[in-house]
Every structure is written in C-alpha cells, then in structure tokens.
C-alpha cells in the first residue's frame, strides 16, 4: 500500500511537470485548458496520495541522489506530511479548475501564470515530502521566490510592489534563521537527513536546543504569521491577485506550521516546557491582535488577512500546549492538543480558501472591496450569499461547521492544564485560554459584521451587476462549503485520520482517548469498563451502528474513576436532532395550526418615505465600539478634525480623519527599523569615498587577521 502512495506522488510530479511545460509553451486558450486540466488532475492525485498513506500506515521513502558532502537528497512521505498534502490538495482542487476563469475575468494572460502556478505546486509538495535538510531548504527558497512573483503578479510597472518586497525580505530573514537552526541540529547529529537529525537530537545541549527552538519557531513563524513577525502578511494578502489568494491563504500559511511541527516537534523535540510556553503565549497574543484588527477593518481582503493571523495564533497556541503537555509527561492531553491544532489547520484551509474566493467574486461583481460601500448582495448574488454564509459561520466557530469542533477542542485542551504540577504554568494556561475565548467572541462579531454589511441591508453604492459573471466557479465554493460541513459533522472520522500523525509525536493514541468505540466495542477494554459502555448505550450512543461505519459518533474524554466523563459532545447526533426538531416545528406550524396570511411590509423606519442607504449602519459604525474599548491598543491619531462653516452657526462639513499604526508596526517594526537605520547610518560613515581611508581599512584588516591567526 505504501508503494501506491509513492507511485501517486511520482505521478503527481510527472503531471505537474507536463502541465508546466504545456502551459508555458501554448498560448491563450490552450494554456488555460492545460492549467485547468492538469491542475485538477494534480490535486486529485495529491489527495489520493495522502489518503492512501493515511490508510496504509507505512511511510514511503525514496532516495533521489547523493551529493558529495551534502548527503543524500530524499523524499519521505509520512503521516504528518500526508495531512498537509491533503489540505493542500483540497485547496488546489477547489481553485485549479477555475483558475482560467478567474484569470480571464481579471484580464491576465494564462501562460505565464501557469508556469508560476505549477512551479509553486511542485515546490510546495517537495517541501512537504522532503526527507532531508537540503531538499527542504531548496524547495523552501523556491517557494518564497515564487510567492513573491505571484504576489506581485498583478502590479503594473508603476505599481506599488512594497508589499511583496517586504514579504520577500521577511521570508529571507526567516529562511536564514531556519538555516542556522538546521545547521546547529545537523552539526550535533553529524548528518543532514531527517532520520539522522532525529537520532542526533539527544546529543544537543540545553542551550543548543533552545537555540534550535527559537530560531526554528521564529523563522517558520514568519511564514506562519505569528506576532511580531507578521507585519508582511496583511500587506501582501491585500495586494495579491484574487486568483492566487486561496492558495496563498490556504496552503503557504500551513507550510510555516509544517516547518514548526517538523523541526520542533519531530526532529528536535526538546525536554523542558519552556519552549511550549513561549509558543503558547505567542499564539494567544497573535490570535488577539489578529482578531482585533480584523474586527475594525473594512477592506474585505485585509480583514481576512488579519483573521488568518488570528487562526494562526490559535494553531500556534495549540502546538504550544502540545509541547508543554508532552514534555511534562501527559501524553493524552498532548495528543488532544495536537489533534486540535491539526484539525484547526485543516479547517482554516477550507474556510479561508472559501472566503477568499467569495471575496474575489464580490470584488468582481461590484468593483469594490470596501464593506462601507457594499450591502444588499443577497438579492443580486443569492447563491454566493449562501456559501459565503457557510464560510462565515464556519470561521466564527458556529456548530455544525468545522470551526466549532477545532476551537472547542482547543479550549478543552486548555482546561486540561489542571493536570500540570506548577501553579505558574497553570496561570499562564488560564490567561491564554481566556484570551482565546475573547478571540472567539470577537471573531463572531467580526464575521457578523462582514456578512451583514456585505450581503444584508440596502446597497450603499450603485454598481452595474456583472452579467457575464461566470456561473461555473460556484462549484469550487460549494465543494469547500460541503467540506466545511462534513468536517464539522463527522469529526469522529477525521480524528482517526489525524491520529496517524499525532500518535508517533505525542506518544498516545488520540483515537483511543477521544473516540470511544460505541459502535465496535463488544467487550470491555482497559479504558472503558462495561458499566460505562452500558450507560452510554442507554443514552443512545449506539444509534446508527448498523448503517454507519466507524468506531462511534461521540467525542468523549474519560477522566478516571472520580471523573468519568471530562467532556463529551457529538456534532453528528446534534445535527440529526436539529434537523428533526426543525422539520417537526415546520410541520406543526404550517400543517397543524390555523391558516394565517402572511403580509409583507417594508422596514419600519419611523414613517420616513424611504430608508436611504446613508441612514443604515456602516461597517465602521458597527465596529466602532470595539475600537473605542480597545483604544489603548489601537491608539488612533486624530489627523484632521476640521469644521467648515459658511457662517459661524452653519456648518457645511465636518471632516475627521483618524490614522492608525498597527500595534506590531508600532512596537516592533518601526523601532527595529529605526535601530537598523541608525546602525546602518553609523556604518555608512565608513564610506566617505576617500581612497586613502579604504587602503587603510585593508591594511588594518590584514593586521587583524595576522594577529588572530597568531593567537588562535
């Protein structure tokens, strides 16, 4: 079976290369067809490869070639890679087939795009299946550069390309940090393949482990979007072309987390709980900062960028909790934490890709992304409004969508901190949990605002509806929406799949702890005594055992004798119960009660003739209370506050403008930039152009080398 996974992988590479060649050689329509077909085939093959690997259970390894002095370049597909491959494949599947539609809609030539598109797909898969450091780093660098090229894809020659440039600069800085981390680890291990690093991790000193962790975490944290390294993210997400956005948000963000998990959880696990706490705190802070700026932002794409930062924070907090639990010996909570983090990562890919594609559709249909100017789209784009609603509900963690399951599991993980011995650690966990809960509430606010201001109410500006707006791209959004629903309603099937990656890293099986075998258990086992099983069978936990495969449909964590059930829930049964209740209510109210006539009347607005758009709530007005309450974080500067008058008593215009600098810019980017600038200015003092001085520098440096050589 493992061989099938491997052949699927190789098939993928073949298809990818073919697609790349075809789309660059052909022009126009044939290039578009090449992108569409080959891209879809590639993503299907990817999903198949991941699924086969998760079902089979054995790793696939392939040595490519051996280089002198660098070791063997190899490919290695294990369960962790398979999960990330699945997420990437799903996102690519949803947007590849219609990439040409998007390109023609936005007016770009297809050939050049195809080249970059397939190259990026190949480099992403190479990163995820790299078996040694060199492959990993080379494909990482290719991925960074390709991302930069794609982010700046739309820019006119005179356009503003600073966003992509900042992203490239930060990527390079992160790459340097990661490179140093790998060098430290490889130095102690004596080889550079992942297997060698794994075995050599035991020889690392404490300080070196900390160094590897920090450099790796922060270096990969750049790509993952963690505070304080994520100031490139909102800028690039806003300027990237809509055709690239789903991949940018759903795939490349995950690569940062893949790197963190691979380096800091798999290869160099570490011993203390310090690294885990660092990750936890950074994750919580990232989540809060992300959602605060998302709630007060009016541009759809920028808002979604900040929301991605928030989700990245939640994933990082989950990873931090996993590290703490594992290194303090609690394997089951560690498994729970890692399951939650991976689940959230998968969910984020689906709903963020959905929302970004929806935002692209909105922009194409109305010409604007500003929520203050949108409104009433539910009438002109009814199908889009349904799937966009699914995406908003999913990201706001509303059951029965997938966001609910992963956020719930994350918060439950934090409650398990009661098992830890140290009170200080428990306090840190409690505070982080509180921050994440606040984040969840703000996320609801943010997406209520997004949906309501864009789709509901009256249109706030006039736009011509784009009649030639293609209908077919709806399939991609529906696919992702259905994926959101399925991931939310069937978690007991997702957890065993994720468990393949979690069990080797955490040391305990999440499936065994979280998904009790109500369907399959005929005799008692260690964890579930027969009395317990019987109780739950009486409650109905065996419902559906005959029709539905699997272990059971309930997620349940068992505590012990005093505490039989720590938590339990079942989205599957809840959805069934909800449907039954809704159908029953509909039946009762329409069939069994008196016939009532329905009168439609317009909105009551105090009797004015029409409710004009300027009389309805704007997005700024909706989120203003959040801005006011968290003023200490936002620190707006009043740039302009003029009152024009014709006569002293007769105002014609009141103009107010507020300028805000992002918190991370204010506290990190600008001070660092100032320091770097001043250091550079100091150093620039050396370059004053006098030839005699330069000769003196050479002489001085020569003397220094001789002295060092003599001493050393």
């Amino acid at each position: 079976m493992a061989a099938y996974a491997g052949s699927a992988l190789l098939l993928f590479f073949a298809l990818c290369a073919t697609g790349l060649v075809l789309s660059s050689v052909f022009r126009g329509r044939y290039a578009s067809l090449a992108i569409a077909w080959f891209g879809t085939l590639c993503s299907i093959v990817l999903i198949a490869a991941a699924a086969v690997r998760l079902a089979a259970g054995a790793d696939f390894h392939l040595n490519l070639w051996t280089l002198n002095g660098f070791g063997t370049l190899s490919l290695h597909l294990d369960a962790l890679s398979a999960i990330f491959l699945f997420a990437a494949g799903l996102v690519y599947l949803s947007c590849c087939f219609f990439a040409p539609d998007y390109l023609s809609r936005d007016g770009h030539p297809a050939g050049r795009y195809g080249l970059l598109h397939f190259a990026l797909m190949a480099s992403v898969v190479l990163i995820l299946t790299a078996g040694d450091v060199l492959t990993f780093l080379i494909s990482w660098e290719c991925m960074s550069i390709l991302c930069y090229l794609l982010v700046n894809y739309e820019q006119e020659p005179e356009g503003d390309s600073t966003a992509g440039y900042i992203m490239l600069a930060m990527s390079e800085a992160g790459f340097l940090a990661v490179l140093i981390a790998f060098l430290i680890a490889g130095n102690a291990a004596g080889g550079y393949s992942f297997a060698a690093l794994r075995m050599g991790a035991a020889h690392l000193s404490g300080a070196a482990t900390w160094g590897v962790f920090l450099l790796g975490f922060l270096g990969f944290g750049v790509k993952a979007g963690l505070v304080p390294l994520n100031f490139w993210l909102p800028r690039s997400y806003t300027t990237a072309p809509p055709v690239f956005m789903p991949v940018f948000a759903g795939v490349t963000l995950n690569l940062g987390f893949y790197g963190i998990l691979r380096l800091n959880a798999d290869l160099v696990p570490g011993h203390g709980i310090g690294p885990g706490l660092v990750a936890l705190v950074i994750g919580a802070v990232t989540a809060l900062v992300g959602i605060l700026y998302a709630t007060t932002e009016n541009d759809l794409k920028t808002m979604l960028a900040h929301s991605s930062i928030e989700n990245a924070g939640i994933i990082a907090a989950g990873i931090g909790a996993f590290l703490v639990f594992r290194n303090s010996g609690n394997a089951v909570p560690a498994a729970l934490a890692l399951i939650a983090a991976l689940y959230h990562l998968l969910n984020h890919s689906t709903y963020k890709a959905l929302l970004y594609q929806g935002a692209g559709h909105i922009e194409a249909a109305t010409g604007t992304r500003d929520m203050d100017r949108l409104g009433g789209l539910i009438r002109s784009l009814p199908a889009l409004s349904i799937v966009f609603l699914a995406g908003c509900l999913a990201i706001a963690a509303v059951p029965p969508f997938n966001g609910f399951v992963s956020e719930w599991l994350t918060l439950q993980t934090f409650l398990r901190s009661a098992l830890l011995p140290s009170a200080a650690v428990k306090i840190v966990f409690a505070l982080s949990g509180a921050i994440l809960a606040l984040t969840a509430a703000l996320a609801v606010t943010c997406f209520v605002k997004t949906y309501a201001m864009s789709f509901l109410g009256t249109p706030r500006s006039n736009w011509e509806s784009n009649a030639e707006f293609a209908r077919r791209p709806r399939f991609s959004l529906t696919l992702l929406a259905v994926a959101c629903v399925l991931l939310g309603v069937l978690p007991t099937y997702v957890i065993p799949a994720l468990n393949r990656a979690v069990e080797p890293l955490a040391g305990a099986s999440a499936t065994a702890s979280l998904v009790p075998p109500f369907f399959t258990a005929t005799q008692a086992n260690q964890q579930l005594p027969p009395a317990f099983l019987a109780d739950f069978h009486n409650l109905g936990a065996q419902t559906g055992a005959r029709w539905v495969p699997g272990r059971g449909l309930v997620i349940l964590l068992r505590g012990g004798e005093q505490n039989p059930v720590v938590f339990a829930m079942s989205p599957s049964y809840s959805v069934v119960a909800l449907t039954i209740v809704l159908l029953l209510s509909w039946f009762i109210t329409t069939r069994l009660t008196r016939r009532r006539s329905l009168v439609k009347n317009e909105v009551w607005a105090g009797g004015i003739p029409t409710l004009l758009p300027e009389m309805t709530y704007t997005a700024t007005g909706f989120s203003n209370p959040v801005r006011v309450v968290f003023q200490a974080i936002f620190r707006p500067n009043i740039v302009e506050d003029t009152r024009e008058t014709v006569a002293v008593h007769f105002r014609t215009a009141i103009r107010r403008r507020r300028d805000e600098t992002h918190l991370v810019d204010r506290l990190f980017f600008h001070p660092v930039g100032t320091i770097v600038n001043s250091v550079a200015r100091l150093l620039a003092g050396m370059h004053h152009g006098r030839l005699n001085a330069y000769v003196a520098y050479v002489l001085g440096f020569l003397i220094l080398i001789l002295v060092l050589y003599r001493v050393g």
Partner: protein
Amino acid sequence: MTPADSSIANTPKIIPQRYDAQSLAAAIEQRFASAVSPSANGENRFDLALIVTQPEALPSLAQFMFWDAGCSFGGLIVEEREEWILRYVFRIPGDGWIHFILRLPLATRTVPSISAQIHAADWYEREAEDLFGLEFEEHPRLGDFILHDQVWQEGLAPMRKGFDAGQTHLKKRPKEDWHPVLVVQDPGAFAMPVGPVYEGGIGESVHFLLETVGEDVIRAAPRLFYNYRAVEKIAEGKSVLDVLLLAERFSAKSAFAHSLAYCQAVERIFQQVVPLRARSLRVALAELERLRHHAGAIAAICQSTALTVSDAHAAIVEEQLLRASCAFAGHRYLFGLNTPGGLRRDFDAQNCGNLLGTVDTASRQLQKLEERLRYSSSFLDRLEDVGIISQESARDLDLVGPLGRASGLAHDLRRACPYGGYERYRFEVPCEKEGDGFARLRVLFSEAQQSGKLIHQAVESLEPGEICAPVTQPNAGAASGWVEAPIGAAMHWIRLDREQKVERYRILSPSFRNWLGLHVAVEDFAFQDFPIILATFGLSASECDR
C-alpha cells in the same frame, strides 16, 4: 459657499452700549442716514418704526442693531399687499420695540440676507422663502424647510395672495431622489433616522437625523414642520373672534399665553383699555399656566432620565394643576377665557381661594421634589455638563425663555417690556450661567416658585370691577401683542381691514427660535444623552410648526 466671514468669527467682545428708544433712533439716523428714514405712517403708533430705503444696507444695519446696540431679534414679518412689506422686529433691551420696514415692488424676488450677521434670522428667512417665494441672497441653505421636498414641489408659495388655502386635492410633485444634506464627511459616517413617528413613547412628530460614526452623535439636525397646519394662511379673511380660536388652539399647552398676546394686539388696534380686575386675573391665569407647564417639563426631564418616582411626583403635581384649572376656569387648558377687552367670565372669592390652596400645595410639592433631586447623584450625573450651550452661543443664536435664561441671557418680557399688569407685581427672573441640563432644570423650578408667588399677588390684589371692556372703536390697522409664554418670548402681529376681518396674522413663537439651538447642544454627546438633552430643552413642535 462663501467662507466664514472673519469679522463675524472674531466678533469683538464689546459691551453693547445701553440705548433707549430715543438715543437708539438718533444713533441709527446718524450712522445710516442714507438708508433709513422714520415712518410717517401713523399705523404703528405703539412701536418705533423706521423705513429702510436702501436694501443693501440691511446687513450692516442688522449687524449694528444686534451686536453693537445689543438688541434682540424679534422676527421677520412678510406681507404681500400692493408691494412686499418686510418688517424686521428688534427689541431694545429694557425699552420696547423697533420695526424696520423694507418695501419692495412685487416683481422683486431677491432680498439681501441678514443671516450671516444675525444667526437667529436664518430660519425666518428660510420660512419666507418656502412660504412666499422670496430669495435671500447668500443665505447658506434655502428650500426644503416647511414644505418638505419629499412631499411638495418647489415654488408653491402658499402664503401668497393668489393661493387658495381651501384646495384640498393639490397636485403634488415630490422630489424623487431626495437625499438629506449630510455634514459629517467621515468615510464611515451615517445618519441614524429618528421619527417622525417617534419611537420614545409619546412624542410630537419631529424627524432627527443623528450623524454619527458609531458612538457619539456628531451632529443632530432636526427636521420640523410635520405639524404645519398653515394657521397663518387659514386665518386670513376670518373675523377677530374666529382667529382667537386659532390663536388658542395652535399650541394648546401655552393656549392662554398665546390668546393673551393676540388679544393685546387686537386691543391695541381697537384702543381698548382692559379693566384692572381683568388684568389681575389675566396675570393669575397666565402664571397658573406657566406653573402647570413647568411641572410638566420637569416631569418630562425626570422621565427621560428614567427616575420614575420623581417623574410620577411631578406628573401628579401637573395633573392636580390641570384639574384645578378646570375647576377654576372650566377647561383644563384654559380655553375660552380671553377675549379682546378682558375675560369672558368672572371668578368668585371661593373659587379663587380654592385655586390658591391648590397652587400652594403644588409649589410646596415642587420644592420638596427639587430638594430630593439635588441629592440624587445618579440623576445629576445625567444632567450636569450635558448638552451645554455657552452664553456666547446663546447670545449668538438669540435664545429665549428658560433655555436662554439657563445660559445667562436674563431676558424676560414680563420685566423688559411689561404688559398686561405685570408692572404692578414683584417677582424675580431666575437666571443660571452653566447652560447645561441641570441649569435648565433649576431655572424651571425657580420660575415655578415665582409663578406661585405671582398668582398669590394677583389674586390677593383683586378689586371688584368690570371684567371686560366693550369695543367702541372698531378700527382698521396693524399692531402687535407680546407675551412671555412658558417656553419664551412670543409675539402676535395682526393687520385688520375695515370690516374687522384679519388680513394678515403673524405668529412669532418661542419654540421656532429655540429649536435652532438644539444642534449646538447635542454635538459630540453620546446617543444615550440625546433624549435627555431634548427633554431639558422642553420645546414644542406644534408651537414651532403652527
């Protein structure tokens, strides 16, 4: 739009010189010799009237009168006879009225605007434009004032002679794409509509557009005249006694005060001398109405802050006074008492004694309520430093009544231009300086106490005598009658023709003046403060709309 006139924006804070009528007339003649001449027409024998011969001098004349001489602007009266007659009414502090009369041929449609100099004239000119079709040059905003553009077409000019008031099925061509004129230019700003069917329990029909960016009300523009019933138009051609009914009923909460002003105007034309007993009783009834009105205003303020027990206490006082009015005079709102020449009925001593008893109880209860309210810190929190109108703003907008007196403008027509017998009584005019909601509440309480004292003085000084003087000289002509109504200074101006039918009836009501000040008070306060500030203003939409 012209930029703000720098001379207006930096008006020097000179102390206006104290003029009386003679010295002021002399000063005007000296400065505006070419533009103004005294009126030779004897029809305005009780006021000082000056003809303005050069319309271009009007703005500088207005500037001199309002700022240099410290006069208060009474209003603008427009008449259409063989020519346009525009009458600008000014009140000299402490000494009576000056009318400036501008005569223009009927073909003229434009008049220089004085709203840049006298901001209180802003709405008078907008009203004249809507109702007569006169254009005022350089006025910042004309149109869509009384006749809403969403209902009526432009150019209707209903007050002109050729317009028949009885046409009930007038064809209307409203503006289809009407948009409000919004002032706040913030990108996320919007205007929250409130009313006209007011969602606050029971309120008069006023429409507000509260411009905001989310937390504070940056600007509140009221849109009035939903209650406009064209009283001035339907009065034309009616007899004196019929128009008296209109004068009582256009704003029934100050019915007695307005009917008093009307009767005084008619009495001036007919040269009737009102008997002493009638004058004393008129003072007592007017102060009874003021006391009852202020009790209601206090109840409204308490209700807006949701301190329901104090609202209940003040409402009980008001209801007792309404019942006392009915038991004393036959009608809860004192309809049907005033007539030109005096009152229509007399009151016996027992009736007066009962009235005094109720008034004393009411005054005592209001005093106790005031003491209790002063110790309620949560109540004061909602009123203190909220909805502030500074003394400069109040003078700038020429606010009248308790609203102006709470901001330091100590003007009261009962003191400044005594009428109807007030010169015989001793009373104080309470005045506060802060101009916030609490100052207005204190002024209301103090005035209520003063009213109680005035009722006592009036009733106790009653002497037997006639109650009404007959009409002996049914003259034609024009005159004005003024009164300090509970909301502020009001003036009724009438022109009668030879058959004693009303040719032109003009009402200058105090609410019309004070609504202009609302947007100053509510700027930059939170949404929750808006109903409270509105309640402390104590304004009446029907009195403004007529």
